[in-house]
């Protein structure tokens, strides 16, 4: 237990270090940055080697936090934190659906690849290649397929489903690889033992391979959760879905010059989103503690 407390302490220290570094640079750095090789009268010329520290470029941290509790867009609109939390929850829900799809597809691929050697040779290269296709290229494709399906009318395909599918595209990869490695991780002696018990594929899967895969599976699930969140945010932006944190980020960034602290609201929102997603998976790990004993033993 003291180990986890130490981990929390180190984490808090890390966050604090970032905050201190921000304020320290803001205090010490040049207000208008440092630009070398600028040509007089030509805006945007030269190379900026130190970023600007004025309040527009780098608001104080306390201003960012205070902005969260001021009205979102003037008048009696609710404080900024309300739409931020709503948008973050919307994205979290979509990312969760994407995560579930990704985990299901990834686990299935991992199972198939472990069961049949030939499938591993045939599939694994494609799975690796799939991750090199940029999301930006791939997102509009899914969105247009989605809207065609939706227009055909037999199955409804709301926009958020496209976002979830795109998120799952990033999420399935670590799961497929983790499941494959995990299922192949049992020692020879354990496999021999199952053979002496005349246990077939399924009993061996449930009694040996799956439990043995847990230590590989948990990091894969955590990675998948982080990927699903990133995927969902990027997908929202690239297919222009409203209501999520990605869209809100872009929108408030556009008003950055007049309201510099505002875009930091959704930025914090998306950070919190990632933490909640990864934390939920850590909770799963807590329930599976006994299956990680192998890591400590021997």
């Amino acid at each position, binding site marked *: 237990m003291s180990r986890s407390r130490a981990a929390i302490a180190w984490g808090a220290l890390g966050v604090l270090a970032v905050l201190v570094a921000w304020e320290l640079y803001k205090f010490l750095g040049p207000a208008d940055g440092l630009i070398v090789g600028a040509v007089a009268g030509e805006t945007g010329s030269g190379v900026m080697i130190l970023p600007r520290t004025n309040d527009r470029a780098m608001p104080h941290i306390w201003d960012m936090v205070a902005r969260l509790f001021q009205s979102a867009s003037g008048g009696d609109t609710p404080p900024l934190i309300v739409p931020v939390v709503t948008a973050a929850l919307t994205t979290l829900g979509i990312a969760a659906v994407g995560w579930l799809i990704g985990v299901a597809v990834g686990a299935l691929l991992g199972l198939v690849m472990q069961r049949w050697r030939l499938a591993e040779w045939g599939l694994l290269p494609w799975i690796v290649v799939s991750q090199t296709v940029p999301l930006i290229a791939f997102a509009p494709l899914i969105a247009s397929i989605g809207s065609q399906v939706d227009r055909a009318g037999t199955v409804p395909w709301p926009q958020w489903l496209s976002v979830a599918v795109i998120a799952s595209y990033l999420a399935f990869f670590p799961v497929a690889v983790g499941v494959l490695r995990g299922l192949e991780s049992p*020692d020879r*002696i*354990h496999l*021999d*033992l199952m*053979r*002496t*018990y*005349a*246990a077939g594929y399924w*009993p061996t899967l449930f*009694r*040996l391979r799956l*439990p043995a895969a*847990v230590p590989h599976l948990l990091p894969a699930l955590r990675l998948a959760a982080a990927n699903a969140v990133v995927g969902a945010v990027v997908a929202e932006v690239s297919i222009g879905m409203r209501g999520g944190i990605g869209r809100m980020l872009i929108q408030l960034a556009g008003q950055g010059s007049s309201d510099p602290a505002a875009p930091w609201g959704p930025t914090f929102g998306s950070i919190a989103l990632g933490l909640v997603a990864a934390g939920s998976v850590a909770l799963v790990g807590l329930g599976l503690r*006994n*299956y*990680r*004993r*192998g890591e*400590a*033993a*021997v």
Partner: protein
Amino acid sequence: MSAVIAKGVGKTFGTKSGDVVALTDVELTVEPGEFVSLIGPSGCGKSTLLRLIADLDSATTGELEVFGKAARQARIDQDYGIAFQQAGLLPWRTVAGNIALPLELHGVSKKARADRVAELAALVGLDDFVDRYPDQLSGGMQQRVAIARALAEQPRLLLMDEPFGALDEMTREYLQGELARIAAETGAAVVFVTHSIPEAVFLSDRVVVMSPRPGRITDILTTGLGDARTEALRESPEYFERVTAVREALHGAPVERANER
């Protein structure tokens, strides 16, 4: 019906650098209730022979019968229990869960399982540890769990590959005594692989001496030490005589002896 009959059994492994003859021409019979040790230098095919009997590998030549059936059928019928040099416990299962694994796989009811686990835990002296996990046990305790697991389905044949190889001398001698007692109580035949001459002599009715390149049986010695496997036996002259006999068989008998025969 004999527990194991091997007739002209041979095993050749095909490897990238050519064929490796691990065993040739093995003739061996193990009677029910008999304790037989396999001893010999590293690489002489002891583990290979055990794995053939267990149907974890199949023989290239010859015939192998276990209780009058093909080795494969005997495996499917769960006629033997097996223990290896590593305990090979599943780290996520408690002692009780590990002992119960074969029973669970073969659909034994929960109640019957619990009874049998309690019985076996008592047999190997681990009553107080059934709820512990393997990483909370010493090496000797883990090995005792492995033996209990091997005995779970009351096999008539026990196959053991250097089960005490990784243990210190004290634990080793203690577990040898336990194993002798358990083997006598259950009446199971045992095929026991070891590197230790005293261990082989102390435990066995017969000691099978093997030699490498190619792996084969060079001698089979009957110990004739009777049924009493007590600590006193370790100090008796007959015991020392047998140890010497096995040592000579292993290192090649002195010339006079060879002439006498």
